[in-house]
């Protein structure tokens, strides 16, 4: 248990560091949200100064940081200037949309990658493996921006999929089944992009680690004992090869909130990505810090989950960890 405690401590330290760093970065920004107001002759300079004072933008950086930390400790993430509302609920809605997208994509990617990778590893060097390696190499050299734009053009030209947004106009009046179909259609393109951009890495990792394990004597022995091939691959080889894959899975969980930023912007999916971009352009400080912190939380949590899974799955880690 000490092992997990140490990892948790490390994670908390990381979160602190990141919050400080983002705060620092955002505060180095010349100008703030109220600068544009100052150009407006209808708004008195006193009003702008009062607003600045109200949001404490006139205070020195350390004071603001401590103030913000205090607010976070009370469960508040600050206040958005642009939306004129607390950051928490704002982020929550967007994060939900992002998660809808990324959880689906991550599950799909793993469900595809595991059988493909195992299959490829079991036929190492033969035709199916070659074809699959070629396919993953091709996907690897197509950047996600290029992929996303290409799919958008495809969608527009065929008219099969909507090209942006979460749902169609008039979603509220649809029947439940219709609602589901509408949502699925809107999700298709971004999910395909995310799956295709994650797939080559996953397949290659699965293939490499399973191929390594397949060389092991105990599997040759199991084969010699006449165990069925499928059982051999999926319940023996895959379990032995799980270690690096668990770490990778933790990483997948960690990037649930941050991995789809660009795709969301390109496909105009109302997730965290567009919100963050807007907030940066508008100098909406607390939204930026909040969004970054939220996705960092996921990254850290993903690592922790991976550590816990490793602890559970690998007796070697348990023994070395408790020995320390």
């Amino acid at each position: 248990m000490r092992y997990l405690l140490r990892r948790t401590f490390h994670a908390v330290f990381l979160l602190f560091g990141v919050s400080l760093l983002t705060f620092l970065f955002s505060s180095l920004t010349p100008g703030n949200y109220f600068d544009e107001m100052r150009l407006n002759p209808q708004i008195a300079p006193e009003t702008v100064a009062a607003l600045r004072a109200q949001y404490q933008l006139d205070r020195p950086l350390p004071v603001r940081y401590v103030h913000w930390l205090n607010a976070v400790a009370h469960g508040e993430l600050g206040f958005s200037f642009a939306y004129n509302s607390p950051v928490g609920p704002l982020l929550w809605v967007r994060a939900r949309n992002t998660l809808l997208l990324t959880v689906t994509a991550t599950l799909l990617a793993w469900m595809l990658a595991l059988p493909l990778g195992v299959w490829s590893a079991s036929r190492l060097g033969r035709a199916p493996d070659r074809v699959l390696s070629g396919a993953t190499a091709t996907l690897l050299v197509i950047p996600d921006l290029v992929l996303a734009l290409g799919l958008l053009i495809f969608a527009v030209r065929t008219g099969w999929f909507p090209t942006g947004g979460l749902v169609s106009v008039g979603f509220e009046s649809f029947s439940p089944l219709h609602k589901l179909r509408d949502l699925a259609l809107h999700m298709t393109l971004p999910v395909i992009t995310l799956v295709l951009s994650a797939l080559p890495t996953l397949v290659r990792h699965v293939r490499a680690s399973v191929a390594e394990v397949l060389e092991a004597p105990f599997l040759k022995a199991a084969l010699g004992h006449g165990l069925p091939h499928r059982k051999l691959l999926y319940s023996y080889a895959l379990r032995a090869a799980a270690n690096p894959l668990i770490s990778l899975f933790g990483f997948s969980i960690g990037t649930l909130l941050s991995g789809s930023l660009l795709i969301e912007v390109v496909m105009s999916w109302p997730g965290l990505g567009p919100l963050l971009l807007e907030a940066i352009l508008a100098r909406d400080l607390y939204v930026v810090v909040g969004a970054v912190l939220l996705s960092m939380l996921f990254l850290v949590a993903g690592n922790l989950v991976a550590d816990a899974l490793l602890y559970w799955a690998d007796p070697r880690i348990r023994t070395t960890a408790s020995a320390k």
Partner: protein
Amino acid sequence: MTRPRKPTRWLIVLVVLHCVVAGAGFFAPYDPVAQDRERTYLPPMHIHMVDTHGHFHLRPFFYPLRLREGSFDQYQEDASAPSPLHFFTRGASYRLLGFVPSHLHLFGATDARICLLGSDAYGRDQLSRILYGGQVSLLAGLLGAGITLFLGALIGLAAGYYSGWRDELLMRTAELFLALPWLYLLFALRAFLPLSVSPLEAFLLVVVVIGMVGWARPARLVRGVVLSVKERDFVRAARGFGASDFYLLRRHILPETGSVLLTQAAILVPQFVLAEMTLSFLGLGVPEPMSSWGNLLATLQQYSVLVSYWWMYLPALAIVPFFLGYLGLASALQERAGAYNLNEKKSWNQT
């Protein structure tokens, strides 16, 4: 697993690709900012060898496009006025590599404009803009990678050589940078720099921002190398002879990090080209009228362009051969170094 491939083959591919972009003035038929407002959004033109009567011509030719009756953006080939294609012809003046003045172009036409990849909203030739845009994007990637590797090497050397609290501090900071999502970091850094600046300043800003983002991974790798090298006999011997820290670092330790830095360069350059594309695509990078692979794609954010003018997507494909070359080079170098890790690229990308 896969057959080991020679890095040289990939290197040749890359050199050829870069030469094409570096010699954009020669390979592009037109000036990238030359407009033709009479004919906007021309679709890609076809080169013919056989005319409408079925006669074969040795010199390739094309039919100029003219507006279809009653339409404002639909073009059709004008078969009555075939225009021959000339090779090694005189055209718009340019400076090769920025200083050699020249008029020579690989191909061109005298009677009408030939836009092999179509033209944009101002009637500017897409092929020329892609080639010139490549100069901006690739230069940003290369310079960015240069800055990153310089920073990474410096920090890695310092951390590895002077262990103790300095090492601890630098590596904890590196961890923070590794943990922050890559795009966030790019945005955040870009955000605290001014938004509206001249194209050249914007370009330099982009280079600096990109260069500041990725130093953590090379720094960690360099540190690892330094940690093992500084205990090697020849380094200890040199130290025993009274060599200074600086001399040791420069003469004995830095050369040992060469292969790590080279591999990192092959991984970083395409990443950074993509970073420039992303920034410019989102309007945070290189502005018009300068072209870059990213800002050429920015028009695709308009729905009407997406619907009607598919060839505006073509600049996106320009990066793919470069990605292939660099990825091939990187994995060949890694195989040579014995570090079989093809997945570095993607995992870094997503972090």
